[in-house]
């Protein structure tokens, strides 16, 4: 097994080296390459390229004082084996002021959903009980809305960064009905509009990313065709497709060869279909070497186009990751405020049951629910 793994890793290093030399090659003729990527039709996501791919940007100086806002969420999903069809979303958030006025505000807001107006969601013209998918999207939206609430508590919005855990791209909404998608997206765009007006940059931080946008582009580069049309690939009879030698490599692996600690990559545009609904907030991303790992940072277009805001995002995220041993402190603490552990879940349902009993409601649990509470031997 160990020998097999060694062999696999050896081959993988060759793949990463090949991807790196492709990156160098395509960067030399990046404009032509960008055009080919834009015109090609593949089954993979391809990034928008507007500069050489191998450019690196050194770490800008950090302002002596700054503020970072972050939020995170977790939930207790409805359980039909419990006493009441209800759920809970807990939003954790932090405001961290650094510098001479260093101080921190940590808080969490649990919200209990139990009435029909809370539990039911419009879904393709019908009202359906919120399931885990719906609750997850609602929770993500609440995390963004919390950022706006935090901003109300910040008198000075200079050198302020809003940081979110994970992607800013609601790609999971792509397969949902338009009424549900519209409801979530309208509220999200409203958040982004306000942040833009206040000129407070927002960034989504992805640790240890598995994304392959740039590798996908380089695979188009490896394709001998002038423009790649995967559905009409003329090489399917060959033992190996011309684009497959770098398959399996991720952007993170590639940029670990490119970026020194503190450096960020060029900006690339994401091409997720959902971004058609983002308007002026279309998402760009870059990779950042935070020292301990390569992370992916996503920002709206108006941040990407404003050099001051972009530099602020770059330096503050690096500083945050340095403070948090490789992962932004603000996100660590927002998570700690948000997290709902298994014993919290049990306690939550106990409280629900107690409240019902106090009001003389008959509490009925399923036999399965009961058996989990007191398993016999």
């Amino acid at each position, binding site marked *: 097994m160990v020998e097999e793994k060694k062999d696999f890793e050896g081959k993988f290093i060759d793949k990463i080296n090949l991807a790196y030399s492709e990156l160098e090659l395509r960067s030399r003729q990046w404009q032509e390459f960008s055009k080919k990527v834009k015109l090609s039709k593949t089954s993979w996501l391809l990034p928008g390229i507007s500069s050489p791919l191998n450019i690196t940007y050194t770490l800008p100086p950090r302002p002596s004082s700054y503020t970072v806002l972050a939020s995170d969420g977790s939930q207790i999903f409805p359980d039909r084996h419990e006493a009441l069809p209800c759920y809970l979303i807990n939003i954790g958030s932090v405001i961290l002021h650094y510098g001479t006025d260093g*101080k921190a505000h940590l808080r969490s807001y649990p919200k209990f959903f139990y009435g029909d107006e809370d539990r039911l969601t419009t879904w393709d013209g019908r009202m359906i009980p919120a399931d885990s998918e719906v609750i997850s999207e609602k929770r993500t939206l609440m995390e963004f809305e919390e950022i706006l609430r935090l901003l109300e508590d910040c008198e000075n919005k200079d050198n302020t960064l809003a940081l979110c855990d994970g992607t800013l791209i609601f790609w999971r909404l792509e397969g949902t009905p338009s009424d549900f998608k519209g409801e979530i997206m309208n509220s999200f765009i409203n958040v982004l509009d306000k942040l833009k007006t206040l000129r407070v940059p927002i960034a989504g931080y992805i640790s240890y990313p598995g994304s392959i946008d740039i590798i996908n582009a380089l695979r188009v580069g490896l394709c001998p065709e002038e423009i790649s049309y995967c559905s009409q690939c003329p090489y399917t009879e060959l033992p190996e497709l011309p684009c497959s030698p770098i398959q399996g490599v991720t952007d993170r692996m590639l940029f670990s060869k490119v970026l020194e600690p503190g450096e960020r990559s060029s900006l690339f545009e994401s091409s997720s279909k959902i971004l058609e609904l983002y308007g002026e907030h279309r998402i760009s991303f870059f990779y950042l070497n935070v020292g301990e790992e390569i992370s992916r940072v996503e920002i709206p277009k108006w941040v990407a186009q404003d050099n001051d805001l972009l530099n602020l995002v770059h330096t503050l995220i690096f500083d945050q990751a340095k403070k948090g041993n490789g992962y932004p402190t603000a996100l660590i*603490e927002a998570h700690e405020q948000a997290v709902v552990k298994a014993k919290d879940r049990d306690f939550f349902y106990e409280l629900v049951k107690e409240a019902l009993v106090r009001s003389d409601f008959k509490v009925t649990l399923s036999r399965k629910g009961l058996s989990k509470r007191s398993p016999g031997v």
Partner: protein
Amino acid sequence: MNRVGEVVESSTKVFIARSQNLGESPYFGYFVKTNSNPVVYGLVYEILTESKEPGRKPNAYGMTMDELRREQPHIFELLKTEFHVLITAYSDGEKIRFSLPPLPPPIHTFIYECSNNEVEKLTSEDFFLRTIISSTNIPIDELLISSLRYAQDARKNDKDYIVRMGKSLARIFKDDYERLSSVLRRVV
């Protein structure tokens, strides 16, 4: 009168209070009181600063306090200071009773430091010394020394008082001369 803490755990013989400010507490061996009814009096015998979350341990950052305030301000929100109090007396509204109150102080009751006048009253007899000596899991001799010092301070170093308490301790310690001597030498 400054509030110094709030009761977060309460039992018949001792209670635990969360300090108002991180790293601050009434001193070890000092008398404190509750604002509950009845007023409960006690001696601080343990002061602890630690993480609020049981699973998280403070890191060593290699920074001065000022640098930590500037660069890691959140850690001050994640730590707590608590002090433990040994109950020595309570007031039933008319007089101080040197015995345990009928009920422990309610949770979330505020804690204040006792005035010199109150310390004088609480230490006028040797009951507090007997309460300390009959307790377990507390630093008995150190608490005797500190509380006697504060009792003496409240009386502006009244030598007769210390002689009287010394005699009480001699009766309590009986033939343990070494221990008595060790305590008394450290009080004066």
